[in-house]
């Protein structure tokens, strides 16, 4: 009676999920209705007071609402009523734009820093100071200079994804094994060919690790950034539903943010596996 580890782990996960959902359901379920109350008055008081029902939605409420969202994710009925798919698409597009720009800057710059001890040392103080700045601290400056809230959000994503990629690229390039570089030297390989055929493949796993850290941070930051800039995106959706006092929708948004974040991480981890090599 031995079953595989993945099967047993999956089973345990399901059990934990069931316990969690059960506890949630019990915690938010109403108690007995209070008798002898005028129905009109009861309506005014709401279910929290009259039936002991929690204001926190239960798993069944969330499940129902989630089903409505997933059935029609892409509708657009004005500024404050867009499908959750549309909001996610906006967020992913902003992350893609900021992250893409960061790649365009971080890879070449990281290569230069990794190859040149001089530039590495010269830029180090700037990187060390810029790296720990919360990306949202840039927001007012970005809004003031760029004068466009959408572009400012993209800038914030750019600045937060830049550092892990830059530092990992520089580190990966600087720590390419000397013997591989010597192989290229003895074969009289030119600098550009060496960069693409030896240094890049050798540093690729480290670079991809940096990119994976970056996408995680970018996805964390986009929610906060969109809460600030407003208009569209999953972060704005969360804030909007909070103003609507729709805790159900807030919970759904949290769930969706988690799932998309996991998917982005999965893509990057697959790519990392693709470029890594056993030694």
């Amino acid at each position, binding site marked *: 009676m031995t079953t595989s580890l993945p099967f047993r782990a999956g089973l345990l996960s399901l059990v934990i999920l069931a316990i969690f959902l059960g506890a949630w359901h019990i915690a938010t379920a109403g108690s007995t209705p209070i008798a002898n109350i005028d129905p009109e008055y009861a309506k005014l008081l709401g279910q929290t007071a009259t039936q002991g029902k929690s204001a926190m939605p239960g798993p069944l409420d969330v499940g129902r609402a989630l089903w409505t969202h997933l059935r029609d994710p892409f509708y657009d009925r004005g500024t404050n009523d867009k499908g959750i798919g549309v909001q996610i698409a906006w967020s992913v597009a902003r992350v893609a734009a900021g992250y893409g720009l960061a790649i365009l800057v971080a890879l070449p710059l990281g290569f230069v820093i990794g190859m040149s001890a001089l530039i590495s040392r010269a830029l180090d103080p700037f990187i060390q100071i810029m790296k720990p700045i919360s990306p949202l601290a840039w927001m007012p400056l970005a809004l003031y200079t760029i004068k466009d809230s959408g572009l400012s959000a993209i800038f914030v994503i750019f600045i937060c994804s830049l550092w892990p990629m830059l530092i990992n690229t520089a580190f990966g390039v600087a720590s390419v*094994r000397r*013997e*591989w570089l*010597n*192989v290229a*030297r*003895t*074969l*009289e*390989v030119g600098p550009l060919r060496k960069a693409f*055929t*030896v240094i890049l*493949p*050798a540093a*690729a796993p480290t670079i991809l690790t940096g990119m994976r850290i970056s996408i995680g941070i970018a996805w964390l930051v986009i929610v906060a950034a969109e809460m600030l800039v407003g208009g569209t995106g999953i972060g704005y959706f969360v804030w909007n539903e909070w103003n609507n006092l729709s805790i159900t929708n807030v919970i759904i948004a949290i769930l969706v943010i988690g799932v998309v974040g996991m998917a982005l991480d999965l893509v990057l981890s697959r790519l990392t596996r693709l*470029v890594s*090599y*056993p*030694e």
Partner: protein
Amino acid sequence: MSERFISIEGIARAYPAADGLPIAVFEDLWFSIRRGEFVCAIGHSGCGKTTVLNILAGLDEPSTGVVVVDGKGIEGPSLDRAVIFQSHALLPWKTVLGNVAYAVKSRWPNWSADKIKAHAEKALGVVGLSGAEFKKPAELSGGMKQRVGIARALSIEPKILLMDEPFSALDALTRGTLQDEVRRICRDTSQTVFMITHDVDEAIYLADKIVLMTNGPGAQIAEIVDNPLPIDRARTEVHKHPDYYAVRNHIVDFLVSRSKNFAEEQAARVAGGLPRNNRHPPVVRPLAAPALMPAATRAAS
């Protein structure tokens, strides 16, 4: 010209020590290698053997002195001088064929992909690796990896082959087979070879001349041993040759005691009226003492 195909002329290499003063790892080395000759350098760790090889490869530069190859001073690495690295140094993300093809393409950038592939496959065939072309280096044993390294070095048809303890990481059986193959290939192609080794038997089996280096810092060439064994030798028979133990004992004696105390030995020799000229290190040819040789063998040789 062929007398001094490679000529090492008074090279020294100094590194700054902790107190800032330079310390010479080796100094005033002179020796030459003829075309088609197989030369081994032997000496203890720290005598700068690898540095000498790296200077020949163009990967390192001497602090003073020059190295002339085929009438031209060495300026940086060249495709004319192929290196077989101790750690094989294969690119792990490329296949076996990809590693060799990379070298072939570097040598002949204008060749078509088909021609490069065919040439690389031929080189792999020479070292007996046909069939493993599409494996990654991580899937190969140590011996097979080193074969790929040899194939890669030979594929560019270099004028000189430089080997840095190529077999030291291998087990004895694999080492023996690879020694046989390297000797066969180098003889077939009249390859000029400079090789570093720690293994006395390996040096005796493979080399025409063995350069003995004293201990560093300040290492020097003590002697150059002219290998008395015949050109046609088999690894399994070489220790039965009457001169074998004379050479072997000479080298082992050197490594065990003389390499440490060479300065004193030298001083004694100079005091005895035998001045030393670094430009022409003494060449010795250890032979078996005639009295120890069985009459039959002596007649045969």
